[in-house]
């Protein structure tokens, strides 16, 4: 009986809180160095604090008897649970959308929780229009774009300081912008495929503009390079647009070929029509359903703590009696 009492006292006590905080701190330090991911670095401290909080709320009379202290601890508990839900369901990735070519899933994933519900699937997101401005010195100035989600008549605006919530995913304008090759593939068996393939970002990889295009029915991918003759300033300033003068280099089994836009390349398996370029712009994606709940509970928690501390501190003077003045 005494052992159980001691165990409960320990699990609900402040020494365990202190231990949890120190463990949390020790977990953050390796995260700074980049050797450990935030999730694994903080897991132990997080677990200790969660256990400690649950027992403190259940056992400690002092907490149960003070409404603000109880509210603070309840908010902390909800926050910790929300953080847990967040880590299990979050998604972090990116998407590139070219003009008039809707997408139905993220372009890439940076990381995601094991229980992430893929809410993006089967919904079309199209880029209706955009404007990206750069100064004469090549420095980025501003960017804004209009997206259409599904068949919605109301376009969604995204700009530098304006993100958008689309299907629960936070769309944030990224600095990546580039060109996409619009093509038509006519296979010898009559198959017709129309599509776009994105060249790398013009802002991140201006010197390596090449793609591997995998066509249906063709064994190996075909490498297509983009050769822009126009000066970079001409298509970046004042507004990013398709350059006036460019061509493609196509590397296939029959060797390298220089191809002008709106020309066809003959391959043994069919004919590849290389149309003009279309611009694409990139967005960072973030999905976390717990965010607003987390922010709300954290504010409630801090306010409750502030009231509790204030109530306690105003009762006594900081100048203690019998202090050795």
């Amino acid at each position, binding site marked *: 009986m005494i052992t159980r009492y001691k165990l409960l006292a320990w699990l609900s006590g402040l020494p365990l809180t202190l231990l949890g905080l120190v463990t949390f701190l020790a977990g953050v330090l390796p995260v700074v160095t980049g050797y450990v991911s935030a999730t694994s670095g903080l897991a132990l401290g997080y677990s200790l604090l969660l256990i400690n909080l649950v027992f403190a709320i259940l056992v400690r009379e002092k907490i149960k008897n003070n409404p603000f202290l109880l509210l603070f601890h309840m908010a902390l508990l909800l926050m910790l649970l929300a953080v847990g839900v967040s880590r299990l369901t979050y998604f972090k990735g990116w998407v590139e959308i070219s003009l008039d070519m809707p997408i139905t899933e993220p372009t890439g994933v940076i990381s995601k929780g094991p229980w992430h519900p893929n809410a993006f699937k089967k919904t079309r997101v199209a880029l209706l229009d955009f404007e990206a401005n750069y100064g004469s010195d090549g420095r980025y100035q501003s960017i804004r774009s209009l997206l259409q989600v599904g068949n919605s008549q109301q376009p969604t605006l995204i700009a530098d300081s304006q993100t958008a919530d689309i299907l629960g995913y936070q769309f944030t304008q990224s600095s990546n912008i580039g060109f996409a090759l619009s093509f038509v593939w006519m296979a010898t068996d009559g198959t017709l495929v129309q599509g776009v393939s994105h060249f790398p970002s013009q802002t991140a990889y201006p010197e390596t503009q090449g793609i591997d295009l995998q066509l249906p029915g063709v064994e190996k991918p075909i490498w297509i390079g983009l050769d822009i003759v126009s000066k970079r300033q001409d298509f970046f300033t004042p507004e990013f647009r398709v350059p006036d003068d460019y061509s493609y280099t196509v590397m296939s089994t029959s060797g390298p070929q220089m191809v002008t836009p709106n020309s066809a390349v003959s391959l043994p398996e069919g004919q590849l029509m290389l149309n003009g370029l279309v611009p694409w712009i990139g967005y960072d994606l973030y999905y976390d359903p717990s965010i607003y709940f987390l922010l709300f509970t954290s504010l409630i928690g*801090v306010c409750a703590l502030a009231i509790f501390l204030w109530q306690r501190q105003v009762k006594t003077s900081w100048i203690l009696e019998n202090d050795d003045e």
Partner: protein
Amino acid sequence: MTMNELTFFWFSLAGFLVSGIYAWGGHIFLGRLLRGTGLMMLVSWLLLTIGLIMRWVRLDHGPFTTMYEILGSNIWSFVLFFLIIYWRMPRIRILVLLFLPVIYAMFAWMLMVPKTDVPLPNTYHTAWLYVHISFGKVFMGALIISMLVSVVILVRQFLDRWIPDLPGERSLLELSYRFLLVALVFDSLMLIGGAIWAQQAWGRYWFWDSLETWAFISWLSLAVAVHLKITLKPEPAYFALFIIFIFIISFLTFFGVPFVNEIPHKGVV
């Protein structure tokens, strides 16, 4: 940078220097803090305020972007916080002797860094910037008082009854702890405000960039200190040492990390 702004900053520094000499002179030669010290600091602070307003009007944005501006605005808020404490808590006015050297150091740093004009990034056009920064300034203001009291506790380990106007160690420890609690609350609010801003501007409330990570380490250190005081009841000198350590961490987070990166949150601006 026009001469007028800089002139006001120099006048302000001169005012703080005179305040310091006046305060230290009274303490050394008369054994007390002379009347008028607070008024001299207030005038110096007003000069700094005029300089900052002139810059704000000229650039059409607040002092939020460069190290020069951040140091200037934080000197402003530190002094404002201290003046309020100076007014409301006469018993600890003598802390001005330790407070002003901190301000001199920050002024010297401010006047040495490049004074270039940088436009306000698009992501800074939000009310949450003001919320985040205001909470941060109260947090650092409270922490600096806690740190100054801790310095007195520490020095008294070697110089008995140093600054006798202040009460005994246990009282000072209690005072330092109370300011630490204020710092913890406002640090938490600063982080929450910053998270909302980050969510709105960059689509993620937390990114683990260097500034955010160090801000979290500062917050955790504060939380550890508060729990340490309650549970282990450390000796005043050890606790004072820990508070000074927290101040150093927080100060470096505020000024060191952005200084290395030139502007705060550089990676995501």
